[in-house]
């Protein structure tokens, strides 16, 4: 299965923030989308999810154009988002959060899947009756990822999962991301500010700057590239 975007443009009002970016990801592959604040990373994945209507370009899931479809249809098509700021349902228990994540699946599948998630994140299993809002930041991030996995997606998009977390927790989150790819064979797009960790888990990375891809390649080449620092910290 392939998720590809071709010449994607998106705008907020009259401001175009994405100027035709293209990338693709296979099932079982994790790619990273890097860039400074405001480079258009989040917009790109929001456009894939249908949260932002693309002004041009295509979002192809196995050749079928899903660009501009309503957000809830993306999840049904097998693409889920772990949004920035986690956005778990704070008044629901851990288990209810996960069950909501499996809303597009049958009850039996949800039960089966719950066990998988608890195996992946044992902490969530221990806290299944706890109210989501009372979890720590790291646990909430695990829950957000777990919730996304409940629908057995083909692709998972993650928007800054390390934001606001302590370095040790960031490490654990990324280990989990790596396991998802390897053990579950899910494809993923990781939007990250933390370049080192992103390059540590991704097999290919794209660097965005002001809405265009300025650099792409495998992590080794990118890490050595002086343009990378420029894209983040270029103060002219």
């Amino acid at each position, binding site marked *: 299965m392939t998720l590809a975007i071709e010449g994607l*443009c998106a705008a907020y009002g009259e401001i175009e923030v994405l*100027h*035709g970016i293209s990338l693709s990801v296979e099932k079982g592959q994790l790619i990273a989308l890097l860039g400074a604040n405001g480079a258009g990373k989040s917009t790109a994945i929001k456009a894939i999810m249908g949260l932002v209507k693309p*002004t*041009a370009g295509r979002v192809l899931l196995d050749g079928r154009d899903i660009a501009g479809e309503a957000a809830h249809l993306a999840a049904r098509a097998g693409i889920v988002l772990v949004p920035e700021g986690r956005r778990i349902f704070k008044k629901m228990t851990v288990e209810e959060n996960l069950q909501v994540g499996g809303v597009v699946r049958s009850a039996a599948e949800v039960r089966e899947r719950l066990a998988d998630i608890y195996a992946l994140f044992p902490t969530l299993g221990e806290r299944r009756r706890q109210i989501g809002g009372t979890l720590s930041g790291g646990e909430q991030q695990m829950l957000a990822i777990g919730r996304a996995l409940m629908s057995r997606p083909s692709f998972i998009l993650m928007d800054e999962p390390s934001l606001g977390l302590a370095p040790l927790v960031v490490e654990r989150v990324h280990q989990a991301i790596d396991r998802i790819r390897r053990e579950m064979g899910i494809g993923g797009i990781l939007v990250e500010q933390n370049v080192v960790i992103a390059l540590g888990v991704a097999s290919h990375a794209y660097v965005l700057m002001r809405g265009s891809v300025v650099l792409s390649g495998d992590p080794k080449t990118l890490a050595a590239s002086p343009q990378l620092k420029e894209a983040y910290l270029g103060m002219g």
Partner: protein
Amino acid sequence: MSAPAAAPASTATVHVNIGRALKDTAITAAIAFALFLPLIGFKTVQNMRNELELETRLALLLTFVAIIAGAKLFVSLVIAPWRERRALNPAPTNATLAKAKTLLAHWFTPFALGFAVVYPILIFTVTGGTGALKWVDNFGIQILIYVMLGWGLNIVVGLAGLLDLGYVAFYAVGAYSYTLLAKEFGLSFWILLPLAGFLSAFWGVLLGFPVLRLRGDYLAIVTLAFGEIVRLILINWVSFTNGYAGISGIPRPTLFGIPFNANDDGFAATFGLEFSPIYRSMFLYYVILALALVTAYVTIRLRQLPVGRAWEALREDEIACRSLGINTTNTKLTAFAMGAMFAGFAGSFFAARQGFISPESFTFLESATILSIVVLGGMGSQIGVAVAAVAMIGGTEIMRDLDFLKYFFGSDFDPTQYRMLLFGFAMVLIMIWKPRGLVGTREPSAIYKERRTILGSHVKEGHG
């Protein structure tokens, strides 16, 4: 980078899927049938022994279903494709039409104003004598009261953006203030008019103070509660207000001490005219016209003052307001007080004109009517509010006269019943169609003369 090449405008066509339209229509008809079956299909009537019995109205039910199905079919076959076509090929702007619009906008106000001034005389000359009474009194004065109330509420809702569902309470305060003070102390209308306005404004501040930090819809509900509390107190505090029965024999306003009655010192006798109630009506008409125009003038002036600017800024964005140095509490309070004051004026006029008041005149429905005038007219637009008042109140009054409809719908058909039904439905439709009201464009409060000189090098570049 840019959008994919759009199809050339001339070739864009829209296919009408008739099968789908028919299916949609069938579904709509089925829903409409189910929806109207209990309330239209059956009618509960009391028989001689005062027991309820059912009658069926199958024909009426089917008529309704047919009308709705027909409308749906029309929308799917004609309107929807037309809109789609228009979306694909935007119509070129019609220069003549635009010009006509500007001309209308320019001349409408002076014309309307002139018409309002000559209206009673015109009616008097056309219909003469008592025939004019109805058109001046029921029609002219009634409409102008609502125009004034609409303009008053417009300050609160239209300018400051505070949804007040209890506006009628201040109208009641004005009416009862005038009535009680006039009956108790025998003071004249012209002394009590400002006093009633002041009292209402005072109540506006008093009620406004605790509620102003509430968010929009909560504020609306609290003002509604206050409005109802005022009405219930008027009903229940019998020793003070005479409760449901109301107060009659309220002194009428005089022209510099000359009353409008058939006595020797009355208006007609003084000026050597034959007595007719039309003189009082014409006098009252000009009083309320003047009051309404004062309201409009004050509002227009206020919009140019810092406080008016603060109101409109507040309506648009409260947080931005605070960081501009605008004290939002005071700004809201002044809007409340101003609105209440004009309601107080209108209330005392109402009491003086009717000669009788009771809590019946100050129900929530009255608040809703005034609010819908403001909303339908386009919030913040003076002309829009006036037009809406004329259409809604005038429309109601005309409905009373449509006796010929009884010929079609039977003798128990009472067209005025449909007034509020249409009000309600119009409110919904207009919110959907134009959430900011019929006259969506507001008149700028302060026009700054654009200077054509090029100032500095940076003006011309970019979008200039």
